């Protein structure tokens, strides 16, 4: 029997919707499914603030964008992928413009660009400081034109169906009714975003549980570079709400408890009144978050009930810049901190923001598993290497969403029909979702207790600075949480919109992803980009200029292998900022 769909996307954010449109435009006859656990316009792309990078001005060049990305990633980026990325970035951003994205403008009507961290030129396109919101709604509304796109809104994917070495669809729960169905497809693209919620303090929305990473990992596709977790230097305490890097790009200063621009002490350049590219507050996120930790150690931060903070000072920018270029920053500060950045200092601390790692793909989003593709934060191509530059990720969703869409469309046109074994797999999954959750007897653990335990473990071991002994301990703690997960008892045994069962499945995904993070971090005995080992403080190109690949064993254990980094024109060198 023919599959229900030709291409099925798991996730309807920036990457998923861009992929869906690319497929529809490549071949209007293909039947496309977007399966998302939330309505697509709720996807976490909506929270991205600062902008999307792509060369836009005559004083800039593709090579400079490539170099900034590669040095920003501490030479862990695959340079062939970066070259394709910077080349296709401008046209993708123009395409969004043609679809109606309300990019901020220059007086003459051209799209405006702003500076951003780690970037040597102004090349970050922005829609005030709500870029992700506008990008997502533009994509979503544009996708409504294409009748070949069928949506499964509020369906939660629990398993990939794999037989004969190829992915053939998914099993998913329709959250509203609780019914569990197999949805077959010739190709599946994972576009589920990141997994910030494995940590306690994150900018990530509640839905960011690494679902797609875990689905792929369980199906036999490796996770790449999972040890590289980005801490964004400026989150609001308690809520973890992001204060965009654009605040520093517009000229904001980071100061410690003495009012001192402390970044000058960490090889990031000299303090100037105006922002300087690749210097001080416009340094890369990994280095800024590390500098914060050193300020804490020196006792130069400010203590609050929610941990130590430094201050982001925007006061000198004045009301006009703040209200026109950074309206969301002001809105968030007024609402959640009861302060006005025009007159007050903003308390900030580093916050888990982004996964450089993800499902291992090639430049076309293809994973090693036939029929399985991935794009966006869920994937690792890798253009981001050991540290992503701000404003590269929205563009990544567009460039690699489109690439994965086109590649999956081509594959799907030639794929065979689903095999009979799929039906039995789907039955087994239906039984599991019933027996292990709704009809489970015994058990005593509360889900939230285990989740908090996992998050604490991750913060203590896989934070900005890491050490081998703490990582090893975390790995065994996560193993024991996997066992305790079997003894969880749910309060909710009903089918209709049972969010507790979904949360339990999400937690199970997060635990797998957390294990891949700690195992990868433990094996990487060097410091590079966002992965800093106190017991191995130097970069070690001899041993570790290589991507880690985490494979899941049959018993759930994690096995790490390595694959070379592709170097084309930029041999590994020292990362230099501010000098």
């Amino acid at each position, binding site marked *: 029997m023919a599959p229900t769909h030709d291409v099925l996307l798991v996730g309807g954010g920036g990457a998923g919707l861009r992929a869906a449109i690319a497929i529809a435009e490549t071949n209007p006859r293909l039947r496309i499914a977007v399966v998302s656990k939330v309505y697509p316009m709720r*996807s976490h792309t909506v929270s991205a603030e600062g902008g999307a990078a792509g060369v836009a001005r005559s004083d800039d060049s593709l090579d400079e964008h490539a170099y900034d990305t590669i040095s920003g990633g501490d030479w862990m980026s695959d340079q062939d992928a970066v070259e394709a990325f910077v080349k296709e970035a401008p*046209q993708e951003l123009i395409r969004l413009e043609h679809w109606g994205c*309300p*990019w901020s403008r220059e007086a003459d*009507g051209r799209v405006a660009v702003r500076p951003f961290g780690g970037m040597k030129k102004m090349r970050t396109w922005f829609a005030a400081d709500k870029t992700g*919101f506008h990008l997502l709604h533009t994509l979503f509304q544009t996708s*409504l034109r294409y009748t070949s796109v069928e949506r499964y809104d509020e369906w939660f994917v629990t398993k990939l169906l794999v037989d004969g070495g190829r992915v053939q669809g998914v099993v998913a729960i329709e959250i509203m009714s609780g019914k569990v169905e197999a949805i077959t497809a010739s190709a599946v693209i994972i576009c589920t975003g990141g997994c910030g919620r494995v940590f306690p303090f994150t900018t990530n929305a509640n839905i960011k549980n690494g679902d797609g990473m875990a689905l792929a990992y369980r199906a036999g596709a490796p996770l790449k570079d999972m040890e590289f977790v980005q801490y964004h230097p400026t989150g609001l305490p308690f809520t973890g709400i992001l204060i965009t890097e654009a605040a520093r790009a517009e000229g904001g200063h980071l100061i410690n408890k003495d009012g001192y621009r402390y970044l000058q002490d960490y090889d990031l350049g000299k303090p100037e009144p105006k922002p300087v590219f690749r210097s001080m507050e416009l340094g890369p996120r990994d280095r800024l978050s590390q500098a914060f930790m050193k300020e804490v150690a020196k006792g130069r931060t400010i203590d609050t009930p929610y941990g130590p903070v430094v201050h982001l000072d925007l006061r000198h920018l004045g009301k006009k810049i703040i209200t026109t270029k950074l309206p969301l920053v002001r809105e968030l500060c007024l609402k959640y901190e009861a302060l006005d950045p025009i007159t007050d200092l903003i308390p900030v601390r580093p916050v888990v923001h982004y996964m450089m790692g993800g499902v291992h793909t090639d430049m076309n989003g293809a994973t090693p598993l036939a029929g399985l593709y991935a794009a966006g934060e869920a994937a690792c191509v890798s253009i981001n290497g050991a540290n992503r530059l701000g404003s590269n990720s929205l563009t990544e969703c567009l460039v690699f969403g489109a690439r994965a869409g086109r590649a999956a469309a081509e594959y799907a046109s030639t794929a065979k029909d689903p095999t009979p074994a799929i039906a039995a797999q789907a039955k087994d999954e239906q039984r599991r979702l019933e027996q292990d959750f709704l009809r489970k007897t015994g058990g005593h653990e*509360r889900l*939230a207790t285990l989740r908090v335990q996992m998050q604490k473990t991750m913060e203590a071991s896989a934070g900005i600075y890491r050490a081998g002994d703490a990582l090893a301990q975390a790995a065994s703690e996560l193993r024991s949480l996997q066992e305790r997960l079997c003894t969880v008892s749910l309060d*909710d045994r009903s089918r209709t919109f049972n969010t507790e069962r979904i949360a339990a499945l999400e937690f199970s995904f997060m635990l797998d992803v957390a294990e891949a993070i700690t195992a990868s971090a433990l094996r990487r005995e060097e410091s590079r980009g966002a992965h800093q080992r106190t017991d191995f403080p130097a970069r070690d190109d001899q041993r570790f200029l290589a991507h880690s690949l985490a494979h899941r064993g049959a018993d759930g254990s994690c096995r790490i292998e390595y694959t070379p980094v592709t170097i084309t024109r930029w041999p590994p060198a020292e990362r230099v900022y501010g000098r």
Partner: protein
Amino acid sequence: MADKITMQVTRYRPEEESGATVQEYEVPCPKDWVVLDGLNYIKDRLDGSLSYRWSCRMGVCGSCGMTVNGEPKLTCETFLSEYGAGPVRVEPLRNFPVIRDLVVEIGDFMRKLVAVKPWIIRDQEKPLIEGEYLQTPDELEEYRQFSMCINCMLCYSACPIYGLEPAFIGPAAIALAQRYNLDSRDQGNDERLEALSVHDGIWGCTFVGECTAVCPKHVDPAGAIQRYKLTAALEELKSFVLPRKAR
């Protein structure tokens, strides 16, 4: 301030009960807790069976709209401390079918959104190689506020017309139609007018203005609707005096 507050939460479990009930929970109320923090406390510690939607916790994803003490609110930006000693009454958004507890069915809006064609319509598309369409900051400002809609459904919940006449296309969908109509890159006014100038389109609105009052993003759907009525009336007038091509 008291360190605990009572939340009175509407429960409805269609598999177990035929109608809605109210359940009381006592939750902590530190000064920086929002209503959603209270609900999460309940779900994590007291009763895992309570169902509601939430995601970004920063007022932009539009998931967590509920009725709080009678008013439609985003619960992630509504502070418990606004309700003094309490109690805080949390109900699902009004004017929608309730699926379960605090979760409402918004499929009706999703269909209406498609009906107004919220995408750029042009007779001819410029090739990408020719770059962007120029749009001055003033031209951007023309439609910008209508592009801020997060589809949170607070306006539909507040709209008395939608409550009485579910066929009414409603505030957010009309505001989004206007978002494209006013965009200098768009040429789709005529196509959208066909969907909107029917009885259940813009003419359903009697200008109560509640939609604008409750919008958490300061969009002015009521203004959009009034402005659109004027456009529609003018088009109607033109149709009497001019052949279609000359309009």
